[in-house]
């Protein structure tokens, strides 16, 4: 009996691994061309990103942000919307958080201040996603186009707005530093082995967000309607889904998640708003959603992978002067190419292989 579809274990595990290996293979080739040993480099990368506890904690710190931006893209994708605007929404989330902090950090205690900051981030992120969502739902303006534009608008707006936030006498285009009450509790107070790390409570919040996302999307009637809308709008309408509201709500949730990504970067690490603080995390969210196939476990693994690449790549460029720091951006690009654009590159071959195996 011939099989016509790949079994789930193959699409969920084997294909992504093959794609990842291909990307790393090309990366190894490039490192070879740069005159360094790929094996040694990979060893340094893995050691500094995963094996060393402090390195691992940095990896997870980056991953915390990526989980949120990855979730933001994933939930919109489940509704059939390609939200490219995570970057701008995260940026705006940072603004919302900062405004809350600047207003309240001298008055509220930490246990109230932190939730307030998160709320500010979520609301601003959601608000920035609302406009493209509304335009898509009511006017049919494609979110891909509008969210890309909104990234630019957000960046330009912040260039102007930041001037209002810079304290008198400060050169750095950034807001003032928040009070200590606004700092996310760091995890090294619980686990001293993590060393001097920015890894904070956001990581646990990210894990919780993954779990809630999984529960809502696959186990609730709301998620069912969301997925139905994404897969077949006609049928969703037949089933009684209020499509335009669903689109707006999906974009609101997506924007709120992207906004929450700012919590880790700002409240967890810098404690102030600076220009371009998202630094591409919103875009990496797209890669994570694609590679992780919008599945909680997949999102988690991809986010950790990208965190490891940043952390390991940074150390690698310090140890190997031949390898520039940008190499990790390049590897990232390869992973997106293999896992996104060439997602099903190995599918047919694998299918053939499985069929041959059955015959033999």
């Amino acid at each position, binding site marked *: 009996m011939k*099989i016509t579809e790949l079994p789930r274990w193959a699409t969920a595990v084997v294909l992504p691994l093959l794609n990842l290996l291909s990307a790393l293979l090309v990366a190894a080739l490039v490192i070879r061309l740069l005159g360094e040993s790929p094996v040694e480099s990979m060893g340094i990368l893995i050691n500094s990103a995963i094996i060393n506890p402090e390195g691992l904690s940095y990896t997870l710190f980056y991953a915390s942000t990526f989980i949120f931006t990855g979730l933001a893209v994933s939930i919109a994708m489940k509704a059939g919307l390609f939200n490219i605007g995570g970057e701008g929404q995260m940026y705006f989330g940072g603004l919302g958080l900062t405004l809350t902090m600047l207003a309240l950090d001298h008055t509220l205690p930490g246990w109230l201040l932190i939730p307030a900051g998160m709320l500010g981030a979520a609301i601003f992120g959601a608000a920035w996603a609302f406009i493209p969502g509304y335009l898509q739902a009511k006017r049919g303006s494609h979110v891909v186009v509008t969210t890309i534009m909104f990234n630019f608008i957000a960046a330009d707006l912040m260039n102007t707005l930041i001037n209002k936030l810079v304290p008198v006498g400060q050169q750095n285009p950034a807001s003032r530093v928040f009070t200590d009450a606004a700092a996310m509790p760091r995890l090294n107070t619980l686990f001293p082995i993590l060393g001097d790390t920015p890894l904070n409570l956001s990581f646990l919040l990210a894990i919780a967000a993954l779990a809630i996302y999984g529960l809502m999307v696959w186990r609730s009637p709301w998620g069912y309607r969301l997925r139905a809308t994404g*897969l077949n709008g006609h049928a969703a309408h037949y089933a009684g889904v209020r499509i335009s509201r669903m689109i707006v709500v999906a974009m609101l949730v997506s924007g709120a998640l992207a906004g929450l990504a700012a919590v880790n970067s700002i409240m967890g690490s810098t404690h102030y708003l600076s220009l371009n603080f998202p630094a591409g995390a919103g875009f990496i969210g797209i890669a994570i959603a694609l590679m992780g196939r919008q599945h909680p476990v997949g999102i988690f693994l991809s986010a950790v992978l990208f965190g490891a690449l940043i952390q390991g790549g940074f150390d690698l460029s310090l140890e190997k002067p031949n390898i520039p720091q940008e190499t990790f951006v390049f590897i990232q690009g390869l992973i997106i190419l293999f896992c996104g654009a060439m997602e099903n590159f190995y599918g047919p071959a694998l299918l053939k292989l499985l069929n041959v195996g059955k015959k033999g």
Partner: protein
Amino acid sequence: MQPAVEFRNISKAFGRVQANADVSFTIAKGSIHGVIGENGAGKSTLMSILYGYYHADSGQLLIDGHPRNIRTSNEAIALGIGMVHQHFMLVENMTVLDNVMLGSEGGFRLASHRAAVEKKLREICARYRLDVDPLATISNLSVGAQQRVEILKQIYRSAEILILDEPTAVLTAQETASLFEILRLFKEQGKTIILITHKLGEIMAITDQVTVMRAGRVVGAVATADTSKEQLANMMVGRPIQSELPRAPFNPGAPVLTVDQLQLRDKAGVALLSDIAFTLRAGEIVAIAGVSGNGQSELMEILSGMRLPTSGQVAFDGRALPFAGRTDADGLPATFRQLGIGHVPEDRLRDGVIKDFSVEQNTVFGYQERVKNRWGLFDFKAIGQRCNALLTAFDVRPADPDLRIGLLSGGNQQKVVIAREVSAAPKLMLVGQPTRGVDIGTIEAIHTELLKMRDAGVAILLVSVELEEVRALADRIIVMSGGRITGELNIEEFDTTRIGLLMGGMHTS
């Protein structure tokens, strides 16, 4: 004489499906040859092999006695094989002439070539009595005329062997009759016609020879003169088919649905429905007959809440349906379901199911809010039990709740949809084309189910373009044409000719 086409041991598999297995038969030159079989019997695959879309895994194909290896449809055309698809391959906003020329423009200087082609088309039209104006725009032509353009295209390309795939699915009785006239003329000119259909009446009326296929194999080859509808049906299904299904005596209850003065206009102001008025009572099946595209779909969409009417009154169970004050129908189907209106949509893959959801998930589609536990999340245990019960009761095969529904056959998908809507116990059931693309065995099961609902006192509004189906199910028949009701008759008055005239827009008293 050499046969026009000979299939020798043709086999073709798609994945695990053996679409054609060892198919052998011949088609005599100058004959009309019927190929019948249920959906998935392999007719279309075989014709696609003949027309060069697919390539057989094994076996031989002979055209006029010569073994041929047809790899593309261009090669098939060069061998004189023409195909009229069920869905027309015409550019709507171009003229007949341009459509015929498309693909054989004859160089850069269109104008001179066009004049020559036009002359030739007029000759062909005269010879075959095809009533088509070469300069008319396709979108202005009726469906029947569009089909004649398709045939014209094939004749122009000097097709000697013409394949017609379900040609009468979209035609009225009168249009069908005139198509058959054309086909007979064709035959007189020595051309060969292969007619693929599932309508046994047409097979009996026009073919010389019939090949019956089932599950990819040839299960019968007979001369039409030596067979009967019943025999063909039994061969197709592989078991005897009940011609008349049992039903309780007609005893309608109170009115469930009252439609009055219903109007629908599209954005451009074109009337899609005009002055629709009828009453549907509990325990009766009212069938809306008509050629597809005459407003039946729009009427069903309005009654199921998928679309707002422009004006008019619709009362369900004594109360007006909540159209008033709305600007769009977003979410309205959920309200209608809540009121007790079930809906089996015409286009099940577009509306009725989510192909990528499992069978189990599709059994709660539209009713997903009714299977929550106290946390507001899905009660998967209850959903699973309910699904298994439905799959057993409606004999869905394979009875695997976790299978993606897109992998089921059309008939089994439809069984899932009907099971879902029936199990919600509606007062009014809207049923659109319930057996489109469904094989005979399943048709019987679906009809039985609908009659059971009727006998239990549900009001059923059926839209069907198949008069056979209307006849098998209806207590009363409403005929629609051009968005209007052109006639209403009781089942005792069933008369194909009269219904055909009404379907064509002729009012009769």
